[in-house]
């Protein structure tokens, strides 16, 4: 039943994901300190731990007549699906789960975010949450198709849906070199699916925190952990898809994978401090009439190269 699954890897995976996610949060904290004109002491790296401790102490909240079941289910789904998605990412050469449909698997885990975020917004019986949840759906309608096509473009280049084989196919040339549009679209989607930085409108300040508006205590922590975990999982996936996986001189492949993942993650975090929020009502049209044709043309180019 679990032939393709590295069991001890599966046990370690959630914690490894948390660790990488915490690194992203630490980096974000450092950039925030710099933006505020403060010194960035070494202990800034502990800030995510501090935030987690804070949320563990803070009381949970219940709004009037929430749909508590759906609310909590939605929040928990974020992290669970992030672990599922990360399972097919080869850490160097070997993923926790080797599947011949790994690319589709990742995509399927990602679509569960549609449900997760909407439920988180709906469950609280609060206007801000409602607006945030629906904003995420609108955002998902915009980024999902370009992202699917970006995944397919990488699979096309390798002729396989197995992520390990996609990485292996880049032995001579990293896909990012001749699929730059697909890479950029994938990174945009990575930001959008983890409603992070420029695509954080579902949790926007203008709507009192959107999907996060009524969450406190551990309920909030679970959602935030899931969000960072998705950011890390998406960054980790971009490496075997476009950046040659664990390929690199001297160092072991897992270390190369980690280094590349952290580099992508750093870029994604940096973007948060560099760009304002992209409003969904404007992004919708841009995604459909600019991003979508662009990635289709990219796929066409790749398929012509492949044959």
């Amino acid at each position, binding site marked *: 039943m679990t032939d393709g699954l590295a069991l001890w890897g599966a046990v370690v995976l959630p914690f490894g994901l948390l660790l990488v996610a915490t690194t992203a949060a630490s980096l974000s904290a450092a950039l925030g300190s710099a*933006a505020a004109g403060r010194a960035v002491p070494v202990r800034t790296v502990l800030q995510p731990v*501090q935030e987690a*401790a*804070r949320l563990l102490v803070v009381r949970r909240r219940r709004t009037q007549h929430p749909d508590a079941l759906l609310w909590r289910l939605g929040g928990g789904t974020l992290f669970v699906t992030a672990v599922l998605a990360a399972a097919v990412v080869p850490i160097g050469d070997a993923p926790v789960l080797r599947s011949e449909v790994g690319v589709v698997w990742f995509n399927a885990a990602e679509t569960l975010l549609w449900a997760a975020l909407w439920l988180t917004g709906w469950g609280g019986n609060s206007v801000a949450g409602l607006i945030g949840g629906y904003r995420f759906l609108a955002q998902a309608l915009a980024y999902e198709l370009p992202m699917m096509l970006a995944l397919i473009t990488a699979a096309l280049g390798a002729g396989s849906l197995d992520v390990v084989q996609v990485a292996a196919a880049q032995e001579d040339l990293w896909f990012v070199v001749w699929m730059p549009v697909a890479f950029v679209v994938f990174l945009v989607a990575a930001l959008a699916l983890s409603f992070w930085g420029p695509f954080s409108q579902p949790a926007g300040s203008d709507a009192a925190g959107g999907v*996060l508006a009524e969450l406190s205590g551990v309920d909030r922590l679970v959602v935030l952990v899931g969000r960072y975990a998705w950011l890390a999982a998406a960054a980790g996936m971009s490496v075997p898809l476009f950046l040659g996986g664990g390929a690199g001189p001297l160092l072991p492949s897992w270390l190369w994978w980690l280094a590349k993942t952290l580099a992508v993650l750093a870029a994604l975090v940096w973007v*948060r401090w560099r760009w*304002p929020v992209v409003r969904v009502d404007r992004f919708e049209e841009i995604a459909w009439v600019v991003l979508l044709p662009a990635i289709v043309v990219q796929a066409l180019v790749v398929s012509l190269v492949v044959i």
Partner: protein
Amino acid sequence: MDLSRFAFARPHVLLVESPGGTASRLALERVLRERGWPLTDSPADADILAVAGTGLRPYADRVWAQLPGPRARVDLAHPEHAGGALDGAQRALFDGAAQGEDAATRSGPPSDQSEGDGMPAGHGMPAAHGMPAGLDMADRAPDRDGLLLDVLHVPWGPALPWWPAGLVLHSRLQGDVLAEVEVSWVGDARSASSFWTSAAEAVGPARTAAAARLDALGRLLAVAGWEGERLRAQRVRDALLDGGEDAVRLAGLAGLQRLHQRVGRSRTLARMTSGLGRLGGGDVTARYRQWLTDAIAALESGADSPVTPLPDDLDDVLTRLLTGTEVSSARLVVASLDPWLTGALVAGAARD
């Protein structure tokens, strides 16, 4: 209680401004920025409720009841006490025993917990009996889209971060679109003007003119979701209001020019704000760009900058501009008119 010292080393603060609380808000924002305590968007995420000024009583109380706890409250009447008040609030968060007692007193339904009477009852809905939680179900109303769907009565302000002090916007929300809007005020509508007038006496008209615009810019950037540049704008603003010699003005000028490069020329921000809130030929984009050029001009010339006049019936204008916009556009439009609504820019003009 080492854990709570660790956990609340960096408490989250919900900062709301009451009419006349500009000085206190600026003081609080400065201390929070220097300490690296984050400002938050909703009471659920807040450990400290900080009210700048004192004119927000019933609204702030209701928000106070929504803080999950451990919680602490700062009502700041005198800006010079900002640091001490926040220290006290943090100490209160460290006190686990007292927080436990506070939490124990709050175990009933929320209606029993709010302190203070005479809550303004939204739109005068009759109390709904037999309805879940005593709340009505939303009713339907026509819409420009031709679908007869539900309307929510959603008030915006006054106890809302990054919002003009004292402004209350009663909206009828259909989906995320404000179908109808009604403007009212808590307290004095132009409550910020006296603060900026006295600031001009303290640090000179040029630096005040620049600081007032940077303050407006920072609030707009917060609503536009650009935290990094919001912090930078506030840093320059605080430096300009610090008093001191001419070097400050030059440092402020350098900071402003950087902001002009990054924010004024940002194509993303322009694309997100263009066409919103058209008024006298300018939209939101034009207004924040004007703030930046005006601020730079004021610092370069060392004199006050002329204020673009806006119509006197600003409330009606606001109603017209906001009707039919969706929520994020509405917030941006309000933020772009903030300095006129609160009198921050009108004050500058009055002195000419």
